[in-house]
């Protein structure tokens, strides 16, 4: 009891400064103690796994190498042709050859649909102060399942068959660009097309050389081409204003005789009308293609232009319509949803015809739809679209690159 009383007395009589000798008396001391406390429990910064991965991707420039590498090997991902599905393969690019004048690029790509393509080209884009461009290229491809429904606007959906198309191509091209928005040029190519038509549901079971010219024999061709292009779209990869007007004239010479020689003239017009400081765009596209052969000669079906698929009549199957002449009209309303995503409402209309004078604005095949485009202000990386309202049913489109 006495001990307890003694403790109590001492406690109550002890001066506060002695009792709380540890209490800080200045603000600086308060802060110093907090820092001292923290110094006892330091730990290294630990970035999360996601942060480490993203950092590695950035510092390794992997994104650039995947999307737009300047040189070296990289994986090529995309669509090698309409209907190929997504294709993959190695690619290689080396710029600055021959004293910095030439760039070389090559790729080999294949898809799960057994489509494949090998391509190599040597381009000289910086001649004469970047006003002259020369290009040499070689290509080999095999597209084993191309769709065919017959020729003409009345072709039937139930006549759907397929054929294989393989070809090599070697050629060159050149262009003069006196001002950035104008290009005049031409080129030539040597083509070796061959058609495969042997299995079930293949083209030979329903069609013959009369209904599908060129089905029985496929000669080699030399193609000569000249073009003029006026292009003031801006930005080029995902235009919001300006236009592109191109006119191309081509001649296909049958090297084994003249049976399949023909001429082709194409006018391709694009116009972009900006609204609301480019945040909305009305985009228009018109394409007219006319192929003409002399009397007694044919335009082979596998070189005829087609309508149908994710780039033209989006509410129809690939190559749904095919003939010598073609008219395509497309209109889109595009609106920016946020920085990397645009929405689009579109309407496509088109027609094929055996004779140019048969093309008209009546009885056009048409579709409409809505979609989203992912990319940047300078280019569209991916588009996802739904196309409706056609006699060809509904179509869902997942496609790399822009439509026009």
């Amino acid at each position, binding site marked *: 009891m006495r001990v*307890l009383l003694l403790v*109590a007395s001492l406690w109550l009589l002890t001066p*506060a400064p002695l009792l709380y000798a540890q209490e800080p008396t200045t603000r600086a001391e308060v802060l110093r103690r*907090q820092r001292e406390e923290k110094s006892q429990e330091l730990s290294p910064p630990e970035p999360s796994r996601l942060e480490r991965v993203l950092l590695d991707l950035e510092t390794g420039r992997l994104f650039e190498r995947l999307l737009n590498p300047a*040189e070296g090997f990289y994986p090529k991902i995309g669509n090698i042709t309409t209907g190929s599905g997504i294709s993959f393969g190695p690619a290689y690019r080396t710029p600055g050859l021959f004293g910095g004048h030439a760039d070389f690029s090559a790729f080999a790509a294949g898809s799960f649909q057994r489509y494949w393509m090998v391509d190599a080209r040597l381009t000289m884009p910086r001649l004469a102060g970047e006003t002259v461009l020369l290009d040499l290229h070689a290509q080999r491809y095999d597209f084993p399942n191309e769709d065919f429904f017959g020729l003409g606007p009345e072709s039937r959906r139930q006549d759907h068959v397929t054929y294989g198309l393989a070809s090599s191509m070697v050629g060159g091209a050149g262009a003069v660009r006196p001002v950035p928005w104008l290009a005049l040029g031409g080129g030539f190519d040597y083509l070796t097309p061959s058609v495969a038509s042997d299995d079930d549901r293949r083209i030979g079971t329903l069609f013959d050389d009369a209904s599908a010219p060129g089905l029985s024999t496929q000669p080699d061709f030399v193609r000569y081409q000249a073009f003029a292009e006026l292009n003031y779209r801006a930005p080029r990869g995902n235009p919001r204003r300006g236009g592109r007007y191109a006119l191309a004239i081509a001649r296909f010479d049958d090297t084994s005789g003249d049976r399949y020689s023909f001429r082709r003239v194409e006018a391709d017009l694009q116009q972009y009308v900006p609204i609301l400081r480019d945040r909305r765009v009305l985009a228009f596209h018109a394409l007219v293609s006319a192929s003409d052969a002399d009397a007694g000669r044919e335009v082979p079906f596998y070189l005829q232009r087609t309508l149908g698929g994710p780039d033209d009549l989006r509410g129809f199957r690939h190559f749904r319509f095919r003939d010598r002449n073609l008219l395509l009209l497309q209109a889109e309303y595009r609106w920016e949803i*946020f920085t990397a995503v645009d929405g689009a409402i579109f309407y496509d209309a088109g027609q094929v015809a055996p004779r140019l004078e048969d093309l008209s604005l009546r009885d056009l095949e048409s579709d409409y739809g809505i979609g989203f485009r992912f990319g940047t202000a300078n280019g569209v990386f991916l588009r996802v679209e739904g196309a409706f309202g056609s006699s060809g049913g509904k179509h869902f489109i997942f496609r790399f690159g822009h439509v026009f």
Partner: protein
Amino acid sequence: MFSKQPRRAERAKRCWPTSRGALPGISRGRAPWLVLAAVVAGFAATIGGRAAAPKFFSDDPIQVDDDRAFDAGSVRAIEGSNAYDFAEHTFLKRGDRSDIRAANVNTLDEVPDSTWFTNRIGRVAISIEEIVRGPNQFDSLVIDDWPIVQEKSSGITPGYRVTDPSGHLYQVKFDPPANPEMASAAEVIGAAIYHALGYNVVQGYIVEVDPARVIISPKATTVDMSGRRRSMRREDVDQIFSRAARLPNGKYRATLSRFAEGRPVGYFKYYGTRPDDPNDIHPHEHRRELRGNRVFSAWLNHDDSRGINSLDMLEGAEGRRYIRHYVFDFGSIMGSGSTVPQVPRAGNEYILEWAPALKTLATLGLYVRPWITVDYWQGARSVGRFEGDFFDPIQWRPEYPNPAFESMRPDDAFWAARLVARFSDDAIRAIVAKARYSEPSAAEHIAATLIKRRDKVLRTWLTSVNPIAEPSLGSDGMLTFENAAVAARAASAPTAYVLTWSRFDNATGSNVGDSVEMRVTEPQAPAPKQLLEGADFVSVAIQTVHSDYPEWRLPVVLTFRRTASGWQAIGIERTVAPRTR
């Protein structure tokens, strides 16, 4: 505020002398219980009466926070990912979002000097020449024959790194071809303003690079697109020049930034603290100068104000190392987007902001974001997109959410706006002149827009709290203070000030005795003599009556301490309306 006192329970636990078993005889009879109760009661009374820290310490208000006290030599360099930083702040809510007063302000509601911030324009009057000079040691630099030693390691602007004759490292960044002078002008204007405000920024100069006099060090390397490091070649430099604006004299204008002293150890985030730095104790989202940076960023349209654009440098001698924190990369402020003119969205909306995006999506674009229709002055390409008419300081946004900006309260914004108010029209024009725009109309537009935006900032944030500042209590008992909003001509004079005087007990942190209320129309008033007599501390709560600003009714409490020569202002506490967002 700087107070982080242990909780009372924790203090009690720490001071408890011994365990129950150490008290002999405690279980025998009734008396011991009574004695024990007395001891406990006395102990509790002692704690309550003696242990509570005073509200104001003897060194309050501190002017310097010594955050170099402990050795930070063991910090590890960290790297930041742009993609992660964007994703982290866009999709997650980082940091403590408590609606609390800034953690690092002193008792006068000011930011003490530290490795983060040095009071300059806010504490003393500095000349326009000093503001313009900013952090620079030299008037100008000529870098002909300075060897290129490496590529520029990050960022989208073309450039490289050189060393001066003494071997010090500098970074060279060029203007984009379509917008000559734009990025370099933004860089030096931003650096001068941020330096004057009090931030650590690196030295930056505008230089002209003669491509014929470029030298590449034999040791210079670059990384090619395959990720391989190789020797730098002349064509690499030519490639850089091909992406740069060429002057009529054949040279290339660039920003030359001197690397800061010390060893780079990464960057700071706008939330949390650095776990390996013993001196970093205040959560960054609660640092006043980082919260207030939202005001400066809005003023300058510094939409790139994010952690990635900061730099931590390790300085000091062995065993006494500390981190100095820098902000940098002002090349995309005002109307500049570094390599292109600033996009119209910048400053108006986050890169990814759901509400307007969903509205635009759902209405197929019929909903038009207001910023889309803004017209920009196009008199000179060096300006980019910069305007002041549509600018709304409240609605302004960085590229993506910033935890410190989102934690900003009206008192933080008021502190920052008072600094902005220190930039006179003449000072702004002189800073803009440092950018050496070749077209006078460009300089005029930039200066006029900065002045217009400054005035909007002041009208917005000097009026968002009761704007009482600069209090003084003379030895004659006359109180004077300033209405910062009125002084900056951001508001008209109020109808009246209602003052409530009290004696203040520093030990308990509360007022004692009767209070005295008075109403005055001017920012001065005599303190009640009877209240001052014999008092060591007095406080006065001031409410401001203004029909346009009802929030000015929220009191500002000023506290004064008696000194040998009179009275010292030691406390300013602003009452702030709770955050509503």
